[in-house]
């Protein structure tokens, strides 16, 4: 028996995801990798540049010429962006890179989010999520998943991540300690989830990968346990 074989508790049934709104595709953009939200604007990493989108109008209000190949995060002041095998800390006002730390997956990284003083980084083919120290990049904790992890986000103490394998894509809420899947929202077939970020309330913004779109999905209210 392989040591990787673990028994997973039965998964909850998947519910269809309710897509509230779609933004884009935007001019000159073929890919959306990471997505973040700074309280007023949705940020999307599109490869060669970072776009700020006004969620009310759907218009691009600002663009930074910064490389973004995977997840994006916002810590209240700075943007964090995965570019190749490093994570850049970017000042959204000037677009300058303030600091860089090595990414924990060495380039296999996908999603990125900020919560409680740590960065959380999805590892796509590694099927796991790392919690890292934003100053040094040292790994503090690892959560295993059984799917390819794309975007990661925290909201109201819930850890959500996107999965995307071939044509199937889901948003999943997982238990922080055991990695157990608590909730599953299934995207329509062919609709991939690259980046993921919550708006702190009822919406989850999802990067649409090769579609070049950003989609807003309604987050189900936590059920009373």
């Amino acid at each position, binding site marked *: 028996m392989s040591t990787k074989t673990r028994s997973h508790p039965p998964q909850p049934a998947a519910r269809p995801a309710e897509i509230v709104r779609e933004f884009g595709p935007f001019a000159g953009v073929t890919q959306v990798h990471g997505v973040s939200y700074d309280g007023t604007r949705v940020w999307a990493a599109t490869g060669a540049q970072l776009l700020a989108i006004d969620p009310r109008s759907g218009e691009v209000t600002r663009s930074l010429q910064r490389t973004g190949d*995977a997840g994006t995060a916002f810590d209240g002041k700075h943007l964090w962006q995965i570019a*190749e095998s490093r994570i850049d800390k970017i000042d959204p006002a000037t677009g300058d890179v303030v600091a860089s730390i090595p990414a924990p997956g060495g380039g296999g990284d996908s999603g990125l989010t900020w919560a409680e003083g740590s960065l959380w980084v999805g590892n796509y083919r590694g099927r796991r999520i790392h919690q890292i120290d934003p100053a040094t990049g040292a790994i503090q904790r690892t959560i295993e998943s059984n799917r390819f992890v794309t975007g990661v986000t925290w909201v109201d103490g819930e850890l959500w991540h996107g999965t995307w*394998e*071939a044509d199937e894509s889901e948003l999943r809420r997982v238990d922080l300690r055991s990695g157990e899947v608590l909730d599953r929202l299934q995207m329509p077939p062919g609709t991939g989830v690259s980046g993921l970020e919550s708006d702190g309330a009822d919406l989850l913004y999802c990067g649409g990968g090769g579609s070049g779109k950003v989609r807003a999905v309604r987050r189900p209210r936590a059920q009373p346990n």
Partner: protein
Amino acid sequence: MDALIAASARALAAGDALGALKRVALRDDPPALALRGIAMAQLGEHARARDLLRRAARAFGPHEEVARARCVLAEAEVALAMRDLGGPPRVLATVSSTLDKHGDRANALHARLVAARRFLLLGRLPDAAATLEAVDPRGLPPALAAVAELTAAELALRTLRSGPAQAALARAHQAAYRAGIPSLIAEVAEARAALDRPAARRLAGGTAQALRLDEIEALLAGGALVLDACRRGLATAGAWQPLARRPILFALARSLAQAWPQDAERDALIATAFRTRRPDETHRARLRVEIGRLRALVRDMAGIEATPRGFVLQPRAACEVVVLAPPIDGEQASLVALLADGAAWSTSALALALGTSQRTVQRAVAELEAAGQVRGIGQSRARRWLAAPLVDFTTILLLPASLPGA
């Protein structure tokens, strides 16, 4: 969809194959293998590219059907660039239907185009035409549309339809410009130049006049009875009587056509057909037999009457008789002219058609192959010869992006 894969794909899309390789050079997961394969193909390392793409296709999981199909398609395109035509054709059909099923229309059409070009290179023109018919060029990305039109143009040229070929090349030209790929634009220009080169000579009264393809076509469509010494046969008003496998009958027909409207002397006919300078009664008897065979074959096009000196050609409906010869004289020019029909010929069939020995044909094709004017497919006894392709597609630029979600 992880960071380095995205960065590498971005470099590849910008034409920076080395930059793409640098980012994934040490990784062996399937998307990285696929990217390495495509980058190697763009650098011209076809054998290595093929190996990497094969490994990538094998390594993708059972759920990653689309990614695997794209790898197989890229591998097929690399095989085409290597002129390795040995693979089974159904692989591309399967890939195409898989991609169609998953909504990847552009790559599904691309797979069909690769299949059509493969048939064209194999000399299987009806298969190529049937495959190409299933491709709807509307809504294709410009680069693919240009390739589709180039393929259609070559098919039309091989069947001597210069009008459709011109139209397809004009559309290919526009599409290549829209795609903005310089090498593709150059290929289309090269193909258009080929249309303006002399493709045959018209022999009449001891003089020769060079003809372009559209002029040949006009001649064939007109009222003349044409003895085509390029493709070896007789043509009139859309009818075609091949004589490529009947060298003696062809030699007789050619002598009769060249002598028209006069008759051709018996001894001259015997000298060209039987290659003897000292004819006797047996040769005259053989001549009567062969003329009888030719008469039966071309009955609908022309009659062959005996005269006191020999025989004369009497076209049925046609007002004149025209002889078309290859643009230059000699064994090699005749070979190239025969192969211009795009079909695959064996050495023995060529020798039979030209009335020479197989060894002579082998020597001639070896020289032509070294000069890049013909190409051989298959091995040893199964070896067949085809004309060099009209256009050498800039294959590698069109490799699909073999990424999940790309």
